[in-house]
C-alpha cells in the first residue's frame, strides 16, 4: 500500500474514533463501506474473516480495526488503523473525564444517552447483517448464525465455544 492510502486509512479511523458511540463494533459498517465498497482494499468475505479473527482472540473489540488494517495493508495498515482509532477519543477522554463526572445526572447528558441508545442498537444490527451477507449462504451457515444468537441470548456460555464450533464445522467443509 502507498503512503497516501495509509494516510487515508489513518484519517478515516480518526473520524471513526469520534463516531464510536456504541463501541468499536458499531462503527464497522462505516469501516466496511470505506475499505470494501469505496476503496476496494479487501473483499466483503475478507472483511468478515478479519472480524471473525478478532472475535476469536481475547482482548478489546477495538482490535477488530487493526486486523482489518492488517489484512488491507500489512503491519503499517494495522498501526495506522489502531493509532487513528485511539488518538481522538483517548485525548478527549483524558480531558473530559472530570467535566463528564460532574454532569452525568444533568438533563443534557441523560438526553444524549437516551437518544443514542436506539441508534446504537440499529448500528449493531446493521453490523451483524453486513457481516453475515458474504458467509451465511449455506444451511449450515444459517444454523451457525441463528444458533449463536439463540445461545448468546438464552445462556451464559462463553462466545469462545460458539466460535470453536464454527471453526470446526467450517474446516470440515460443511459451511
Amino acid at each position, binding site marked *: 500500500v502507498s503512503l497516501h492510502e495509509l494516510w487515508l486509512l489513518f484519517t478515516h479511523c480518526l473520524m471513526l474514533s469520534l463516531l464510536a458511540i456504541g463501541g468499536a463494533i458499531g462503527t464497522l459498517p462505516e469501516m466496511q463501506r470505506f475499505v470494501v465498497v469505496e476503496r476496494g482494499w479487501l473483499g466483503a468475505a475478507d472483511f468478515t474473516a478479519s472480524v471473525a479473527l478478532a472475535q476469536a482472540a481475547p482482548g478489546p473489540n477495538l482490535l477488530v480495526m487493526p486486523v482489518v488494517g492488517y489484512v488491507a495493508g500489512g503491519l503499517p495498515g494495522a498501526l495506522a488503523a489502531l493509532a487513528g482509532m485511539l488518538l481522538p477519543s483517548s485525548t478527549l477522554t483524558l480531558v473530559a*473525564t472530570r467535566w463528564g463526572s460532574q454532569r452525568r445526572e444533568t438533563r443534557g447528558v441523560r438526553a444524549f444517552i*437516551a437518544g443514542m441508545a436506539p441508534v446504537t442498537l440499529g448500528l449493531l444490527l446493521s453490523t451483524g447483517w453486513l457481516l453475515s451477507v458474504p458467509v451465511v449462504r449455506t444451511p449450515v451457515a444459517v444454523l451457525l448464525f441463528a444458533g449463536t444468537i439463540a445461545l448468546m441470548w438464552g445462556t451464559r456460555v462463553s462466545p469462545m465455544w460458539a*466460535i470453536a464450533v464454527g471453526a470446526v464445522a467450517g474446516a470440515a467443509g460443511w459451511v
Partner: protein
Amino acid sequence: MLNPPRRPQSPRELFTAFTRMALMGFGGVLPVAQRELVDRLGWLQPQEFAEVLSVGQVLPGPNIINVSLMVGDRFFGLRGALAALAGLLCAPLALVLLLAALYKNLADVPQVAGALRGMGAVAAGLVVAMALKLLPSLARNPLGRVTCGVATLATAAAIGGLRWPLAAVLLGLGGSCCLLAWWRLGVKR
C-alpha cells in the same frame, strides 16, 4: 467501611492487571473488568465502577478503552492512564496480528478458508446477540418504545441498507433522538 480501599502500587501493576483482563476477555473485556477491578482487586467500589462506566459511555471511543484510561488516570495521572491502556492493548494486539498473518498466508488452504467462513457466521451472530441484549434497557428509555423501535429500524436501514455515511446518520437521526429525549425529560418534570 470495614476494609480500607486498596489501590495499585505502581503503573507497572496497572499494566499487568489490565493485560490479565484483556487476555481473559473473549468477546469483550468490560464484564471481566468489572469482576477484576471491583471484586478481585478492590481498586474501585461498585458505584465507582458504575460512575466510570457511565462517563465512558457518553464519551466517544470504545467503552473499555475509556474505562482503562480513566482508572489509570485516577491512580497515577497520565502515566497511569497510558500504562493501563498499554496493558489492555499490547498482548492481545500481538496475538491477533499473529493470527491475521497466519490467515493471510494460509487463506488458500480450503480448510482454513472454510474455518474462517464458519467463524464468520458465528461472529455475525455474536454481534446480533450483542444488539438483542440491549433491548431490555430500551424499555425504560424516555423516548418510549415506539419511537425507539422506529429509530432503531431507521438506523439499521440507513446504515446497513442504504449505506449512508455514519457521521450523517449519527448527526441527523441521533441528533433528533437526543433533542426529542431532551424535550421528553423536560415534560416529565
